[in-house]
């Protein structure tokens, strides 16, 4: 047992809006720049320091680096963690707006997060007659 850590300093005042990751980010809908749903925020990726590593005084606070989706939902609910190769990431720099939903500044079409949707579309739904019919 090393010496007990110094009491935490109060959080420095910040400019702008304070977001609660649990309340304002997790489980929110993600839309692309055309308003098409991409996914829900299943988990968040934070930058270091790693878990179980002694934190040196003066280390910069971790920042959100990416939104995560895919198998991570299952592990978030039932425990464990998927191998990092199986994480589907949406880099934080692509997030344009955080409101009731998270809006991306890019198109959702080429994202990894949409591969199941694309697969179902190309292999099944688009092949059924009328699959590309515009209802309006």
């Amino acid at each position, binding site marked *: 047992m090393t010496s007990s850590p110094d009491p935490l300093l109060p959080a420095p005042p910040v400019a702008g809006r304070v977001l609660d990751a649990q309340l304002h980010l997790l489980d929110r809908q993600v839309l692309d720049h055309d308003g098409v749903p991409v996914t829900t925020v299943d988990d968040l990726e934070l930058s270091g320091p790693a878990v179980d590593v002694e934190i040196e005084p003066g280390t910069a606070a971790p920042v959100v680096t990416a939104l995560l989706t895919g198998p991570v939902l299952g592990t978030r609910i039932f425990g464990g963690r998927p191998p990092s190769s199986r994480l589907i990431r949406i880099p934080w720099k692509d997030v344009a707006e955080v409101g*009731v939903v998270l809006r991306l500044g890019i198109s959702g079409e080429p994202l990894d997060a949409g591969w199941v949707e694309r697969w179902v579309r190309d292999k099944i*739904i*688009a092949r059924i007659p009328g*699959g590309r019919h515009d209802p309006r």
Partner: protein
Amino acid sequence: MKRLLGVALGILTAIGGFVDIGDLVTNAVVGSRFGLSLVWVVAVGVVGICLFANMSGRVAAASGRATFEVIRERLGARAGLANLAASFLINLMTVTAEIGGVALALQLASSVYYLLWIPVAALAVWLVVWRVRFTIMENVTGLLGLTLIIFAVALFLLKPDWGMLAGQLAPAVPEQETVWTYSYYAIALFGAAMTPYEVFFFSSGAVEEGWTVKDLLQERINVLVGFPLGGLLSVAIAACAAVVLLPAGISVTSLSQVVLPVAEGAGKIGLALVLVGIVAATFGAALETTLSSGYTLAQFFGWSWGKFRRPAEAARFHLAMIVCLLVGIAVLATGVDPVLVTEYSVVFSAIALPLTYLPILIVANDPQYMREHVNGRVVNVLGMVYLVIILVASIAAIPLMIVTGAGS
């Protein structure tokens, strides 16, 4: 003028769309066994569904978020998933029951065995979901469902002793029944009136039709006028059963017994109309539940959804609905009685109610979503009262089901 027509149309479809196989069967069963002594439960249920449908519609109009997105955001992934599992299974049961209901009604009309009608009914449901525009779908089934008013007409034609009928309205357990079966059917009726799919469908429909806060007034009129009138239709079904079936000692176990009072009161034409009404009402509800199963899944997982998109632009949503319909066909193909599936689905609905309605109440108070359209104080008090009622019904449902042997 056009606006007035829109309001009238909205009310009419709300009336016609209110009754589904759950309401038809449960009200007839209750009417034939308990007379009108459980009508008060219908009233409680109708006020509840008005309250929460209106709230979920307001959330959808103000924030563009449908109910299940809100449920996941507020309950988190774990409780949200539990709710999804429960709601989805109940919804699947209801899809099965509604398709079975369409098939049974077609059997009554055509004398062709209902199992042969099931693939036809399911295919028709899928074609409408796949191809027909949302507003047309809703208006056509809603308006055709209005023919169920024949239950009210038949009640008058039966010339019942109105004084005696009114005397049954007081909540009291009939001699031949126990307080347990009485409570069990109270919960079934409550579940039938407040089935969660109605708010999933209602709020998602508001997004489908692109409602904004400007449409709130019309939405409120649709709900506050349409649903109570739909509730009166439910009462008429129970009253018909109470007048004809209760004295004769017939207990309702099939759809033919549900329509028997109409045939007696209004003759062949009445029978024809009631069959049209039942096909339209159950078909409409089959559409709503099928869509709701897609809505709940898509909104939980954040998939692209909606009939306003091309099917290829909401691929997983459409695939999910196809799978649900296939599962429904498979379940019915085992020969299970659709009426029995219905009776169980309404009770299970009652069990899942709290997890659905609590997040709606929370978000309807969140200014980030609602801006100035947050709940007023009266609505919040009513909402809290209903949450207590819902919780009691939900906790009591399974014990009562065991004690009464599912109401037998």
